[in-house]
């Protein structure tokens, strides 16, 4: 996903928030990963907004996508340039109303945003893990979040919400901890990547690994594979948009010039945009994390893991109420994938609502400020919350 949040301190905001850390799985009680590898200690960065009710029944867990972090809403400091990544959705009176709900957003393991990942120091070698970091899965990410929920004393989550890879975590939560989840909102997501999505991820990974500075993942004390990571991000950005949105946003317009330069500078606006996005990304993201997280998403296969190959069976354990949302121009996680999960949910007699939102902004639409999406989420959450009070 890309970064859309603009500075909007005048609007309703949760205000100042804090990045918190929770560390668990201290050796010898390491976390056993799906691959069988052991990882510990494990740290998760997380953020909370709103107040947990006395009966602990108003917790909403927000799950972020590939390049996101635990900073979901509000500001760390008064003079921060930008609020958290989903500040348009999470806040007082917003789609996810922090006056009503207690919102937790946890960073995923394997990330580089404060949680244990390949750039963390390996306690055994006292060096960054690099490629010694075990391959983690969406299931492992969810297991780590479960430990955090236990730590926060939340036994039942009112709703798990997330888009894209965050949506995969939503589905995995429902399959892995069915008794803990009352409602679930997977946005622009899928039960497994298509060949198209895996292909784009592979090209992005190749871009990183082909950069000589990547050095088999050992670059933490020298120059980083910035070029490779920037190209990886550029590929990502193309997949997050759509033909229509790129035509609308850039067309064939030139950047700061009236004619071609007849060399290989960025002539077109779209070239300049991608170069800028790539450059900005390397300042905040770790190349190895990109490899690990895209691999985890590509490996994810809900029906294989929880349904012996059947999508219907994969939803047989959960009793969660679902709101599934897709976007018309999303070609990375197209509507047919959302419809397939809706079908499987129906076959299990589950309570499911589904809406395909008209949007020209491609996969990124789920992050954009949209009254329609706010209203859908607000209405759905209100209903499931009221139903728990009956």
């Amino acid at each position: 996903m890309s970064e859309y949040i603009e500075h909007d301190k005048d609007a309703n905001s949760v205000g100042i928030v804090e990045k918190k850390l929770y560390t668990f799985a201290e050796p010898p009680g390491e976390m056993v990963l799906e691959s069988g590898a052991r990882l510990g200690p494990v740290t998760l960065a997380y953020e909370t907004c709103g107040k947990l009710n006395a009966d602990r029944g108003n917790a909403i867990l927000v799950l972020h996508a590939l390049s996101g972090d635990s900073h979901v809403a509000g500001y760390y400091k008064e003079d921060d340039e930008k609020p958290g990544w989903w500040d348009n959705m999470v806040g007082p009176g917003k789609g996810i109303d922090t006056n009503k709900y207690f919102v937790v957003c946890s960073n995923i393991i394997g990330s580089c945003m404060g949680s244990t990942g390949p750039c963390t120091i390996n306690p055994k070698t006292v060096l960054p893990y690099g490629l010694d970091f075990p391959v983690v899965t969406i299931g492992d990410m969810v297991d780590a979040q479960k430990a955090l929920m236990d730590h926060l004393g939340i036994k039942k989550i009112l709703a798990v919400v997330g888009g894209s890879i965050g949506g995969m975590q939503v589905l995995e939560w429902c399959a892995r901890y069915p008794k803990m989840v009352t409602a679930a909102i997977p946005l622009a997501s899928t039960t497994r990547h298509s060949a198209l999505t895996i292909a784009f991820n592979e090209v992005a990974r190749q871009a990183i690994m082909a950069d000589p500075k990547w050095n088999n993942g050992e670059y933490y004390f020298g120059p980083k594979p910035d070029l490779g990571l920037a190209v990886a991000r550029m590929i990502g950005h193309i997949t997050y948009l759509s033909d229509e949105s790129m035509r609308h946003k850039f067309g064939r317009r030139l950047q700061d010039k009236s004619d071609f330069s007849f060399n290989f500078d960025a002539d077109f606006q779209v070239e300049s945009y991608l170069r800028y996005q790539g450059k900005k990304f390397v300042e905040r993201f770790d190349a190895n994390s990109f490899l690990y997280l895209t691999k985890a998403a590509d490996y994810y296969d809900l029906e294989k893991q929880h349904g012996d190959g059947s999508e219907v069976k994969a939803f047989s354990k959960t009793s969660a109420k679902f709101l599934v949302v897709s976007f018309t121009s999303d070609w990375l996680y197209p509507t047919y994938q959302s419809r397939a999960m809706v079908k499987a949910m129906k076959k299990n007699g589950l309570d499911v609502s589904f809406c395909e939102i008209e949007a020209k902004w491609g996969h990124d639409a789920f992050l954009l400020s949209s009254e329609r999406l706010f209203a859908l989420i607000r209405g759905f959450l209100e209903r499931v919350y009221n139903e728990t009070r009956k």
Partner: protein
Amino acid sequence: MSTTKPENNKMRFDLQIIASWIEPGSRVIDLGCGEGDLLKFLIDHKGAIGNGIEHNESKVAHCIEKGLSVLQGDINEEVLDYPDNTFDYVIMSQTLQQVYEPDTLIRSMLRIGKKGIVSFPNFSHWGCRLQLLLSGYAPVTQQLPYEWYNTPNIRVITIKDFRKFIHEVGFNILKGVAINTHSENRYGKIIAVMPNLRATYGIFLIGNGTE
């Protein structure tokens, strides 16, 4: 027929009649639920567990905003996924005249639900008959307000035709009522005498057995 009493004067009149037929606490699905008025009423006043299917994105969104469980899709496709007897009532109001394969859909309705409720505009109302007879043009009425070339209503149904059709597909009519009302009107009246000529809409409860 005489036991039918309209339920609530805030809804379209045919929906008031339909609501009066639903037993409290039933599981209900509304095919083509629009903005969800009937569903909301059945949930709030009859303790029903309600679901809806609607094609139009903006109507689906309004339903979900109101706290209804509704999914966007084509009713002919969406009914296929539900297990047998998931619902007590499967409702299709003022949509039958737009369905491409009515027999297939009616069979699906009575597979996923114990009973079906269907309402439709009556094409043999005297107004339609007179227009065709006197003007020679295809009838355009308040209930069927389109020209032949832009109408979504691809089926021409009369109350008599519907009764015949239900028997031909092997089901029974458990209850039927004919009403006179304008399309979006909240008020109307039940027509007991010569309904096929005098009623603008027919509403039927259908099923496998007898009531």
